[in-house]
């Protein structure tokens, strides 16, 4: 059986998609898959994903309906608005929600590993995370990653 490992290190809505899309697809193709969530990537394992947002700020490649000066992007509420618009866009184009992709991965037996060091560092409460995850460190990841056919850092 082929294997794939992914490190998910980003916690924004846009960067949350690649790990879940690739993990679910690889699982559908018969790969054994593990995703290691570290630093901001840990936000993707929260029961409540509403804090996963997208910001146009410092993200000049993000397509905007109207060009928006940085000074405007800084205003309160811009992040929520951009996130809402992005979610509408995803839905309109038939792209699954993060929650849906995360569940599909679990259903396909993708293993989620949460970085213990990050949890200690940011003093996260484990009860805020979903149940079906394991906790480990770099060595835990390497044990699986060392035997993979594909290994990605997102």
């Amino acid at each position, binding site marked *: 059986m082929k294997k794939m490992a992914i490190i998910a290190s980003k916690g924004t809505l846009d960067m949350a998609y690649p790990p879940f899309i690739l993990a679910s697809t690889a699982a*559908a*193709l*018969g790969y054994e898959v593990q995703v290691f969530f570290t630093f901001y990537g840990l936000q993707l394992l929260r029961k409540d994903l509403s804090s996963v947002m997208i910001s146009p700020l410092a993200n000049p490649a993000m397509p905007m309906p109207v060009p928006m000066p940085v000074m405007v992007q800084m205003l309160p509420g811009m992040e929520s608005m951009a996130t809402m618009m992005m979610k509408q866009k995803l839905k309109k*184009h038939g792209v*699954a929600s993060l929650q849906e992709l995360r569940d*599909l991965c679990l259903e*396909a037996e993708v293993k989620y590993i949460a970085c213990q060091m990050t949890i200690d560092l940011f003093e996260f409460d484990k009860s805020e995370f979903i149940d079906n995850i394991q906790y480990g460190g770099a060595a835990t990841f390497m044990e699986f990653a060392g035997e993979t056919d594909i290994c990605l850092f997102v």
Partner: protein
Amino acid sequence: MNFDKELDARGMNCPLPILKTKKSLSDMASGQVLRVISTDHGSVKDMQAFANQTGNALVSQTEENGEYIFFMQKK
């Protein structure tokens, strides 16, 4: 063409058509045929890639009024 099961993946985008195809095939018997309808342009290439990698046979693939119809025979 005859088929044993049908999957309507219209409106879905990558990677959902592939994930749903895999799911539909999982409770079918070897040799049975799944008919998939999709509107995702990317699924044309992806269904071929899925077949190549999983060993299921993409028996036929056609386009009708912007809808793609695939016949996938389970390995």
